[in-house]
């Protein structure tokens, strides 16, 4: 989870402290559509998980990534 927060902060260029599992796309301006794609790709590569193509738009907050990590 720490790693996840780190990735989000790196891609969105935000302080780690300002990011939690509740950080959402809607309320974070840096989390635009391009960064969303980069974030998905980076999380897949770094955490070695797969997020199905169809589910990519459903990720709305940082915590949503955890669904795939657990599996």
């Amino acid at each position, binding site marked *: 989870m720490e790693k996840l927060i780190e990735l989000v902060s790196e891609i969105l260029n935000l302080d780690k402290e300002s990011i939690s599992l509740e950080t959402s796309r809607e309320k974070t301006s840096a989390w635009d559509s391009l960064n969303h794609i980069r974030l*998905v790709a980076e999380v897949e590569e770094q955490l070695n998980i797969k997020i199905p193509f169809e589910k990519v738009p459903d990720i709305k907050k940082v915590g949503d990534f955890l669904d795939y990590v657990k599996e």
Partner: protein
Amino acid sequence: MKLSILSNINLDSLIGRLSKLYDVYKTEGYGAWIQEIINPDSGLYSFGPDMVFIIIDGEEMCNGQSKSNSTIDTNISYIEEAVKNNPDITFFVSNIDLWTRKIESVKSGAKERRLEFLWEGGLFLLSSKYRNVYVFDLKSIVEDKGREQFYSKKLWYLGGIKYSMKAEKLLEQQINRCIASAKGIRKKCLVLDLDNTLWGGVVGEGGLEGIELSDYKEGARYKDFQRRLKEIKDLGIILAIASKNNFNDAIKVIREHKHMVLREEDFVALKINWDLKSQNIRNLSQELNIGLDSMVFIDDNPIERESVKRELPEVTVPDFPQDTSELVDFAIELYNDYFYTLNTTDEDTVKTEKYRQNMKRRDAQKSSASYEDFLLSLETKIEIRRLSAENVQRAAQLTQKTNQFNLTTKRYSEQELLAMIGERGFEGFVAYVSDRFGDNGMVSVVITKHKTDSEVELDTFLLSCRVMGRFIEDQIIGFIEDLHKKSGYKKLITYYKPTEKNVPVKDLFERLGYTLLDVDSTGNKKYVLNLGKSSTCSRKEFGELRAL
């Protein structure tokens, strides 16, 4: 450093990351790389980059083209046009990887291989023909990483981004290496341990027969490692030994073991003794006249590494691989991180020999009655020539790398030097030195700049550290003064610009009899010599001078 990344695909996030480190030209969209490089009025050229990286995606270039061959030929000729018309810009052009995943019969053949080869061949010809273009080895990155890792299907379908995040990071690394190498940032000396580093086991215990070093199986780990180290040496990096051993045990292996790749003559110095390694490395640095920050130390023993790190923090001490089957990868990593080389000069291939001769000179010095006797006994010959296209490569290298005896420390690329001497007002000279121990090659670069009809100034004056202390500078500057006096100049203006490393020449011009005109608050000094009257100061002359 101003650079530009051009591509036929979307590399925005790579460009974004590089923009944090360098001044990077932003293109509008992508795919317009050809217009950018061939139109002299393009945004690219008005930006004025030092380096241009052209990253070509093969599939994008060739796909949908019925005549891929002619597309490749045309694009190569566009690149040639750009390279030829912009000699001040260094171009790096990628080779291509074609992953088409088309479905076709076996018999129809893998056309992709032939296209990759055609492009590669075209680039290779360009890079042999022009100094300012290099092949950017994208294909090797793809091969090392594997296509499944290099490309990202998801990023492609979601955002039109073709390469994975990992791939972009590797490209970024490779770009950084090219930049560092073009700037001449490279370590000079690799200091190696022996036991469990160049061979397996401890020679002091097992003897010549007891160590692991062979063509196959266990011992091949070390033989392969040595082969890669020898390749590093051939790039002009000097190798030295620092090993705690009985000298006789270790030298026997180096001289006699049939699987040793590196032999005595491959090392500039063999510090095989029981002294502290940090002390040996410090001595090496003094004897070779190489800064500690230009040295990399390799040892399998973490305690030795820690001790050197603590005593000599300037020395680079990489971790040794835990798994010795990875020694070859380790050598390649060393090359990539510290010794990455765009091209070698003739000087590089004989560098070890030069340093070995220098060690012999030091020994001769010890046995001479006085230092002056020693200098006379060297039978030094100095030859001064004009700076020209034939010798500009080494001259540029000297301006990039010379730190100690360098009065103004101005760094020039080959292109810059050629442009300067083509201009009215600048004159360039280079000096070669040889003596009875061997040929030192080019050791000095002098550039003068016309100020007024009566005044000329010294833009650059440097001397390689290999021949420092032999008063060669006295004769070179004497020549420069005479030449300009004959051309009618009355005054030679010179400068000393202090850096961290050029303290040895802080008072050079005082010694040479120049008059100090001005010192500013940062220590920049300005001098003048009246060329009218004959020189009155005591200049030394130990060599025979031939000029132009």
